[in-house]
């Protein structure tokens, strides 16, 4: 089960290696540095997990909707709105103690991202709008909303840059391992993955979600209210992405800066595809992407390779995942043919 994804990852890294050779770099040396650095010491390994936490969540944002064949391409916008929700709560209620402030920020991020997502589901349920287009466009609107808030109401008190003040320390997610950046948010991200698994495979709601995904007509015939499913799926989906905002604002940045982490939503899509839209697969893929990011930063700093190489690696891995799916289909067809053939021969004897 792990063989095909590993094969795709290996091919993706090999192809990216060819791109590195264009700049006259030795890919083996680059990868040596990359993985050597990522796993060099406890601080870096912990950083892999810290980087993976929001990636798990945007991966779930796409993967969860994908299970009912709905396309939530708007993870980036839902993530930004989650950031806005978490940051504005932390700024407004900074004098609250941590045990009140943290759940408040967490709830605000889920609600903000979820509501932004639910709108897409609503547009689909009520107006039969194409969810792919609406969720895509909603990201650009979310960026506008965030930029507006950061230049106006949420702007730092010094008033120089489009960013918020540093939030009160009671709003920081506590670190898990001292002297690293790994915070307890990673556990929350894992819990979200487990929750996604339980909802999808252990509840009747999940059964209905997957039924809509497998055969919409049959599901409708069986009495599933697909309109409600659209809204619920998009709310949960957006909620996952919004929660990623809580991770980044309260766990890592401790403030909100305009336009930060602009690829998180797209990376989530890649992670969900590599992980076959299964929560466990998503967690593993997010850890891999986290390692690429941690090691990638050093490679980018030291060997004059542009930061876009990380995007290329992710893109190549995704393309090879698709190729491996096609290959698996072909192999399955051939196997079936051979089975039929051997059965026929068995009959004639």
């Amino acid at each position, binding site marked *: 089960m792990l063989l095909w994804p590993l094969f795709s990852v290996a091919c993706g890294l090999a192809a990216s290696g060819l791109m590195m050779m*264009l700049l006259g770099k030795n890919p083996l040396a680059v990868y040596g540095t990359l993985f050597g650095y990522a796993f060099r010491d406890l601080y870096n390994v912990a950083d892999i997990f810290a980087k993976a936490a929001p990636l798990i969540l945007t991966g779930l944002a796409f993967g969860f909707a994908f299970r009912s064949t709905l396309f939530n391409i708007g993870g980036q916008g839902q993530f930004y709105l989650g950031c806005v929700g978490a940051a504005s709560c932390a700024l407004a209620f900074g004098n609250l103690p941590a045990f009140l402030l943290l759940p408040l920020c967490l709830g605000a991020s889920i609600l903000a991202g979820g509501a932004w997502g639910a709108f897409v589901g609503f547009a689909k349920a009520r107006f039969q709008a194409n969810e792919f*287009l609406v969720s895509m466009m909603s990201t650009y609107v979310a960026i506008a909303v965030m930029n507006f808030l950061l*230049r106006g109401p949420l702007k730092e008190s010094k008033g120089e840059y489009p960013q918020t003040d540093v939030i009160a320390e009671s709003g920081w997610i506590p670190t898990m391992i001292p002297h690293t950046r790994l915070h307890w948010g990673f556990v929350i991200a894992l819990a979200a993955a487990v929750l996604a698994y339980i909802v999808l495979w252990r509840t009747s709601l999940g059964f209905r979600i997957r039924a809509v995904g497998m055969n919409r007509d049959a599901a409708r015939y069986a009495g599933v209210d697909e309109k409600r499913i659209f809204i619920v799926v998009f709310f949960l989906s957006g909620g996952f992405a919004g929660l990623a905002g809580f991770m980044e604002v309260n766990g890592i940045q401790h403030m909100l800066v305009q336009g930060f982490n602009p690829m998180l939503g797209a990376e989530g899509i890649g992670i969900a595809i590599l992980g076959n839209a299964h929560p466990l697969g998503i967690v593993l893929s997010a850890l891999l992407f986290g390692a690429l990011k941690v090691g990638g930063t050093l490679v980018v700093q030291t060997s004059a390779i542009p930061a876009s190489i990380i995007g*290329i690696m992710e893109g190549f891995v995704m393309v090879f995942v698709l190729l491996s799916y096609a290959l698996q289909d072909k192999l399955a067809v051939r196997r079936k043919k051979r089975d039929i053939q051997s059965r026929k021969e068995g009959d004639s004897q």
Partner: protein
Amino acid sequence: MLTGLLARALQMSTPLMIGALAEVYAQRTGVMIIAIEGIFLMGAWGGFVGAYLSGSLLAGFALAMAVGTLSALVYATLTIKLKQHQIVTGTAFNIFAAGVALYLYRVLFGVPLLPLTVDPLPSLAIPLLSEIPVIGKALFDQNILTYLTFLLLPAGYWVLFRSRVGLIIRSTGENPEAVDAAGISVEKVRFLTTLFAGALDGLAGAFYSLGFLGMYTNDIIGGRGWIAFAICFLGNWNPLGALLGALVFGLADATAIVLQTSGVKLIPNEFLIAIPYILTIVATMARKHFNVPTKLGTPYIKERK
């Protein structure tokens, strides 16, 4: 100010029209080019690189179309030949293109201290017509690509609805079995149409680097590919609908730019920039009756006897 607004609107709608026309053709055969945002970006990159290295805009546009075709070839192979999911494949391609375009720019030019520029496509004033007050300057003082695009759309309409090629293209999206029965390869029609659309998308992308700015930046497309994609839907898979839709969006885009630079403060800048995207959402929700090509998004699997 009105003249400036109209002129700008026409200019901004040009690449949207080209992209939407490409999408109309491809989707009529059943293939959604979800990779459009990435192909626009590759086109903008190819256009700039070609023009900068050769010193000729023509070479830039040629390279942009070649890069667009090549990108479409990758997309078509994955979706048409290997029958992978179009939305998933397209999303993967877009992420890939964003990395590759930036990376190859760096491979070619390193880290320049000042942004590299070329002279953008000049405007050609048509004698007499451009002297008409208000609209003259707006309509008849555009660059050559804009004029050509306004000819391209009616031509595209004619081919799609009045010619044999158009009939084959439309049938492929509606009833591929019949096309197959007539002895025409469905995959071939889809493949060729997608490649043609890729060339057009590359051209449209180059318009952003060579038509307006004369330079290449990382976020040069900024979702305009998606808007072209949306216009194809909203224009009901019809080149003339695409023409109309692109004009509306061009006007929205131009209004945002003109209001921003004129210093008139009606609403915050951020929301001006968001107008085209909000408009797409509203239009997608408001549109009731679509003529969706029946086989849109479904791979064709030939029955094996």
